[in-house]
């Protein structure tokens, strides 16, 4: 372990001790009164902008909420589908696309929270010498994109808004690392990708940002917290304690600023802090206190704006043949857990 990391951990530990304790005493008194024995839980974690999850992990806020967490690292959301299906994972944090793909394949799971809101941190970057300065210039160009990803959807939705169809562009299917190589070798003119790859394309290759999903009106670019229905029916308490830990993390960030979140995600993604700082500005912490608020962009309520965006994205995935059949999203999001946690918070 290098010195810098030891220093950060030590500083973080001190901050944790100072900052988390008052939060633990005041904010959780009502929430954790009935905890008793900590409940074990296996949480899937990915190298992505899971601000709340990483702060809760690093400052042991799940433990404060009465959990005994084990973190299982995945490189992709797809792996967590199999893990939930095989009952070797309790709470997964996949992207919305793997979540919907799992639903389409009959995985009986539901969303209980929003992990990351990436609509401001996913978009299109063009090579500086490609002649592309706006969306319309993408016509006839070669674009690298990961098939079926939220970036894929965001790109085609953005192009559709400008009257450009899929056949008007040449899509080369590839993941973010291959996109970087292809941009470097000038095999492609642009990429549709998420952070930190956007910054890498800009900083390392001099790429030009054309726009983010949010600029094109696409707000479905999210990560979610998903649990199997079978697990949820038997472990309501675990899920509520998990969400309590996230609430504590949110309160910590509101009180102390985003430094801890930025450090944690920087370490998890192995990306420099400067880049993660930009990412934090583009894709801030989802407001967990409003997940039950129908007026919030990322509310879990049925029929809300987010629900509608995910429905549109699902129809797109069916049209593209990425999922074989449309799925019923009417019960895909369960707001009752966070609503209960927030009610307890209000009472104390």
């Amino acid at each position, binding site marked *: 372990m290098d010195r810098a990391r030891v220093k950060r951990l030590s500083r973080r530990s001190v901050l944790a001790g100072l900052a988390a304790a008052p939060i633990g005493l005041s904010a959780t008194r009502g929430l954790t009164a009935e905890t008793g024995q900590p409940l074990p839980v296996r949480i899937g974690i990915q190298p992505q902008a899971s601000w709340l999850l990483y702060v809760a992990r690093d400052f042991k806020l799940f433990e404060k909420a009465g959990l005994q967490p084990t973190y299982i690292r995945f490189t992709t959301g797809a792996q967590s589908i199999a893990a939930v299906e095989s009952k070797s994972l309790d709470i997964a944090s996949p992207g919305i696309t793997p979540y919907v793909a799992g639903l389409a394949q009959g995985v009986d799971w539901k969303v209980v929270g929003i992990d990351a809101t990436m609509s401001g941190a996913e978009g299109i970057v063009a090579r500086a010498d490609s002649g592309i300065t706006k969306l319309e210039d993408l016509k006839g160009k070669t674009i690298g994109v990961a098939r079926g990803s939220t970036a894929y959807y965001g790109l085609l939705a953005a192009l559709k808004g400008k009257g450009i169809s899929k056949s008007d562009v040449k899509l080369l*299917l590839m993941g973010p690392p291959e996109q970087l190589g292809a941009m470097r070798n000038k095999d492609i003119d642009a990429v549709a990708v998420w952070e930190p790859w956007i910054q890498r394309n800009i900083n390392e290759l001099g790429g030009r940002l054309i726009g983010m999903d949010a600029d094109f009106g696409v707000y479905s670019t999210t990560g979610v917290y998903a649990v199997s229905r079978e697990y949820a029916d038997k472990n309501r308490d675990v899920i509520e304690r998990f969400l309590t830990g996230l609430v504590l993390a949110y309160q910590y960030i509101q009180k102390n600023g985003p430094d801890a979140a930025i450090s944690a995600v920087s370490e998890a993604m192995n990306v420099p802090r400067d880049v993660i700082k930009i990412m934090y500005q583009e894709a801030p912490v989802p407001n967990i206190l409003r997940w039950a608020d129908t007026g919030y962009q990322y509310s879990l309520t049925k029929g809300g704006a987010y629900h509608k965006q995910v429905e549109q994205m699902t129809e797109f995935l069916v049209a593209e043949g990425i999922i074989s059949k449309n799925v019923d999203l009417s019960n895909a999001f369960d707001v009752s857990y966070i609503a209960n946690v927030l009610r307890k918070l209000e009472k104390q």
Partner: protein
Amino acid sequence: MIDKPQTPRRRQRFAADRWRYPLISFASVVGMICLWALVTGLGLVSSRVLPSPGEVLVQAGYLIRNGYADNPLIVHIGWSLFRATSGFLLGVALAIPVGLLMSYNRTIGAIVQPIFGFFRPIPPIAFIPLMIVWFGIGETSKILLIFAASFNYTVLNSAAGMRSVPEQLIRAGTNLGLTRWQLFTSVMFPAALPAILTGVKMSAAVSWAVLVAAELIAAQAGLGFIITDAGTFFRIPDVFIGILIIGVIGLGIEFLISAFERRLLHWQGKV
């Protein structure tokens, strides 16, 4: 051993033996499929993680009619055949002479062996980022990855085959007045052939095994592409179909090489 005369009874037994083992192999495959159907039919494993043979067949029919990711299934198979075969043939074509030379000439052996030994345990997938940077996202990087894996097995076996040529054969050839070239072509190379062909068979199998990794390099079509892409979206029947097609093709190639081996090494097993 002197060949015994072919009596009618011996001919009958020979004819029966000729079909016995292929029948046993066929029955083994059918047995596996029946076991698979039984396990899924009894619900011992969720169909989401192990689809039944029937489900896989139905999905295969769907893929044949509708293709995958905007390409017909035959196009995916064609691309994989092209990549695997190219990498395999290039690997084998270079590996056989290099392997033979390594054993024949100790200086060359001393130069190349530590380099091969260093690279041998490194899985091809580890080279993917380098392949993209050095060779781009086109076919070159994919074929080179398969070439590297294929080369490895055949070069090892070719060198081992050459080293294991019995000393008596070499001495006999020398005593009969064969030149070095005649000794190599008429004695040493034929004696090393069984080991070389074993390496070729292993290279053929490993070429297909590495194909899935190679098609991670921005492949737009291919069986490895299907497997990886379907896995991303938890389309397990499609993953199975990709795996099964690769397995069937691999088996077919092994049969072909074995048939070629039997013709070429017709003398093997007889004194």
